[in-house]
C-alpha cells in the first residue's frame, strides 16, 4: 500500500512484516525512530509474538541478538555510528558464529569530532567483519532490502547489515509502498536455523578453535559471501516478480551505455548523481553511473563488466581511509585489474556536508578533462585548512583543532551546504 511516511517508519513496518521475534533496542541518532516504531508496534499488538528488549548498550543489543538468534528465533536490531563501533566485538562474533541477524545501520559519521550527520564511516569500519552489507538508494529500497535481507541471512546463516543514509533517508518523508503481510510471508519462509540451542539435542557453539581449523572456518565465511554474489541477484529477481519493483541486486548501472566517464557511489547520493548524469547527457557528455548495492560481498565481476569499457571511473565516497584515500575505490580498482583507465577517488559528504548538483557537475566536468587529483575532497574549504596549518605551525600549544576551525568560521549554525 502506498503511504507517505518517514523512512524510519517504513523500515519499522517492513521489519515488522518479516515477523522478528526478538528486537533489541538501544537509542542512537539517527536510527532511533526505527526501533521506536517497532517498540510501539510490539506494545500495541501490531507485532505480536515479539520480545522488544531495551538494553543498556549497543554491545548488549547485539549480544542479546546473538543469544536469541542462536536459540533459533528471527532477530533484529539497529544502530548507527558510535553504536556500531561499541558493538564491534559482537559484530565480528555474530558472523563468526554464523548467526543470521539483520541489523539496520542508519549511516552516520564517527567522532571525534562528534557529529550526528550522515556519512558511511560507521558501516565501512565493519566492512570486513563478515556481515553482508547492502546499501539502500531510497526509502523504498531500504524497506525492500530488509525483506530480502532476512531471506538471504537465513539461507546462508550469515548476518546482514542494511545500510541507509542517516537523516537523508531515515528522517525523510516520502512515498513508500508497504507490502502486504501475505506477500512478505510468501517471499520469506519461517526461520529454520542451522544450529540451535536445544536441550533435546545439546550442541556446543563458540568453541575454541586453534590453527588446525581456524583458516577453514574463515574460508567458509568467505565462501558464504561468494555464494551471496549469486543469491543476491536471484533474490532481487524473485522479489521483483512478486512485488513488482526493482530493489536490491548487486549493482545498479544508470545510463552506462557508451559512457566514457562512470561514477560509482553507494546509497542515497546516487539519486543526485543520476540527476547530474541526466543533465550532462542532455549536454552531450558520455557519462553514466553505477550504484553499488552489495558492498559485501563486493561485486567484482559485475562492476568489471560495466566499467571495463569506460575511459575513467570516479568513485564518490562518503568515507575516508585516512592516510590512503578511498575505501570503495580499493574494490573498484581491484575489479578493473589489468584494464588501463583513469581512476579518481572523491571524498564527499563527510559528516553530513551536502553533495549538491552544482558541486557534482563541476567535479564531473573536471573528471571529463582528466583534471582531477587521484584523491579529491569535494568542496574542501582550503582557506580554512591553510589558515589552521599556519596557526598550528606558529605555536606548539595551538589547542584543539576542531574548535579552532569553528572559531575561524565564526558564528554560523550547523550548515550542511
Amino acid at each position, binding site marked *: 500500500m502506498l503511504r507517505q511516511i518517514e523512512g524510519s517508519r517504513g523500515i519499522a513496518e517492513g521489519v515488522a512484516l518479516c515477523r522478528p521475534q526478538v528486537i533489541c533496542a538501544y537509542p542512537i541518532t539517527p536510527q532511533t525512530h526505527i526501533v521506536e516504531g517497532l517498540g510501539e508496534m510490539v506494545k500495541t499488538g501490531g507485532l505480536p509474538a515479539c520480545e522488544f528488549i531495551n538494553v*543498556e548498550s549497543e*554491545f548488549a543489543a547485539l*549480544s542479546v541478538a546473538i543469544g536469541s538468534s*542462536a536459540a533459533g528465533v528471527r532477530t533484529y536490531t539497529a544502530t548507527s555510528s558510535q553504536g556500531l563501533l561499541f558493538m564491534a*566485538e559482537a559484530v565480528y562474533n555474530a558472523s563468526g558464529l554464523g548467526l543470521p541477524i539483520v541489523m539496520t545501520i542508519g549511516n552516520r559519521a564517527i567522532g571525534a569530532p562528534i557529529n550526528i550527520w550522515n556519512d558511511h564511516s560507521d558501516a565501512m569500519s565493519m566492512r570486513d567483519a563478515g556481515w553482508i552489507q547492502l546499501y539502500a538508494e531510497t526509502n523504498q529500497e531500504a524497506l525492500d532490502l530488509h525483506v530480502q535481507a532476512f531471506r538471504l541471512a537465513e539461507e546462508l546463516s550469515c548476518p546482514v547489515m542494511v545500510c541507509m543514509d542517516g537523516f537523508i533517508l531515515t528522517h525523510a518523508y516520502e512515498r513508500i509502498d508497504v507490502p502486504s503481510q501475505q506477500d512478505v510471508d510468501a517471499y520469506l519462509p519461517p526461520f529454520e536455523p542451522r544450529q540451535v540451542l536445544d536441550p533435546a539435542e*545439546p550442541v556446543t557453539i563458540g*568453541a575454541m578453535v*586453534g590453527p588446525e581449523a581456524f583458516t577453514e572456518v574463515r574460508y567458509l565465511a568467505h565462501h558464504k559471501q561468494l555464494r551471496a554474489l549469486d543469491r543476491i541477484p536471484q533474490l532481487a529477481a524473485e522479489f521483483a516478480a512478486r512485488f513488482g519493483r526493482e530493489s536490491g541486486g548487486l549493482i545498479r548501472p544508470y545510463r552506462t551505455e557508451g559512457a566514457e566517464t562512470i561514477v560509482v557511489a553507494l546509497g542515497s547520493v546516487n539519486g543526485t548523481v543520476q540527476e547530474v548524469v541526466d543533465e550532462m547527457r542532455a549536454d552531450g557528455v558520455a557519462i553514466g553511473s553505477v550504484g553499488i548495492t552489495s558492498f559485501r560481498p563486493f561485486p567484482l565481476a559485475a562492476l568489471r563488466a560495466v566499467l571495463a569499457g569506460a575511459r575513467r571511473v570516479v568513485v564518490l565516497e562518503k568515507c575516508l581511509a585516512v592516510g590512503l584515500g578511498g575505501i570503495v575505490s580499493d574494490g573498484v580498482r581491484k575489479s578493473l585489474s589489468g584494464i588501463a583507465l583513469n581512476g579518481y577517488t572523491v571524498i564527499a559528504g563527510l559528516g553530513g556536508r551536502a553533495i549538491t548538483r552544482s558541486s557534482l557537475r563541476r567535479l564531473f566536468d573536471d573528471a571529463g578533462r582528466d583534471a582531477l587529483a587521484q584523491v579529491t575532497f569535494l568542496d574542501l574549504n582550503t582557506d580554512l585548512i591553510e589558515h589552521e596549518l599556519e596557526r598550528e605551525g606558529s605555536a606548539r600549544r595551538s589547542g584543539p583543532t576542531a574548535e579552532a576551525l569553528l572559531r575561524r568560521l565564526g558564528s554560523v549554525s550547523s550548515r550542511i551546504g
Partner: protein
Amino acid sequence: MAMQTVKFYQTGTFTVGNRLLAPHERSVQAEAQRANALTSGHRACQGCGEALGARYAIDAAMRATGDRIVAVNATGCLEVFSTPYPETSWQVPWIHSLFGNAAAVASGVAAAMRMKGRDDVRVIAQGGDGGTTDIGFGCLSGMFERNDDVLYICYDNEAYMNTGVQRSSATPPAARTATTPAMGAEPGNVFGTGKNVPLIAVAHQIPYVATASVANLRDLEYKVTRAMGFRGARYLHIHVPCPLGWGSAPADTIRVARLAVESGLYPLFEAINGEIASSTPIRRRVPVTDYLRLQKRFAHLFAPGGEARVAHIQAIADRNVVRFDLVREPA
C-alpha cells in the same frame, strides 16, 4: 535427675556424607544419575576449583529443571579448558560468544525461549570474576535491572587466571598477582579497592542472590536449586580456589576454600528481593592466617613487617562476621 539432650550430629548435619541420609536428601553429586554436565577429559589444571564448581552448579541446575538447561559462557578458563575442538566437555547446550557479554547473550536466549513457548528451558550464564565483575559488569547489571529470567553464576578465583594471573576487581587486598607484584612499600593488591558484586547484585533488588563455596557442596547445590525456583534475574557467586594463581597445593583446593569461609573472609549468604535473608554460620572459626598461609600469593604477609597487613585482613574478616552474623551462640 538432671537430663541432658544428646544430639546426634551425624544424622542432622550431613557431616558423614550420604550414608545416613535418605536418598532424596543426598547430594546431586552422589547420584549415579547426575548429569555430569561438565564431563571428564577437559583441560583444567589439577585441583581446579572452577571445574569442580561448574560441574556442581550445572548438575544441580540440571536436576532442578529436569535437564532443561542452556548454558552461556563468558570467555575465560572455563570456556578454554572445556571446548577445544573437537573435545567439548559440555553435556548441555552451550554457547560462548565473548568475554564481556555472557549475561546479555543469556538474556537473548531466555527471550527466544519465551517466544518459542519453551519457558521450561532455563538459562544459565557463567563466567569467571574478570568476565563478571569487570568486563562483563555492564551487561550483568543490565540483565539484573531488566529482571531477565537468567541465573548468572560467577566462579570467583579472584584474578584473571586464563591470561596468567592478573588483578581483577575481585582480587583481595595484599594478593600477589602478575599486575600487583609482591614488591615495594605496599606489596600485592592494594587495600581499599575492589568491588563486592554479590552485594551490588542485592542492590538491584533481583529475586535471588547467594554466595557459595566449592568447599560446601550441599550449600552450593541447595542455592542452585533454590535459584531455579525463582523466575527473573538471579545471581550466584561461587568461591573457587585456583592452585596456579593462588600458589596453593592442588590437593588443598577444598581445604583452602573451606578456610576462606571459616575465617570469615568469604561469607555465605542469601538475599531475596534485595534483602539479606540468611547467612550460613561458621561453626569453627579460624584466624585468617590459617587461610593465608596455604597460599604463596600471600607469602609476603609472613615476612617481617607484614603483621599490620595481616591485622587489616583479620579486621575485614571480623567485619564480615558482624555484618553477616556468621558466628552464633549455640541455641
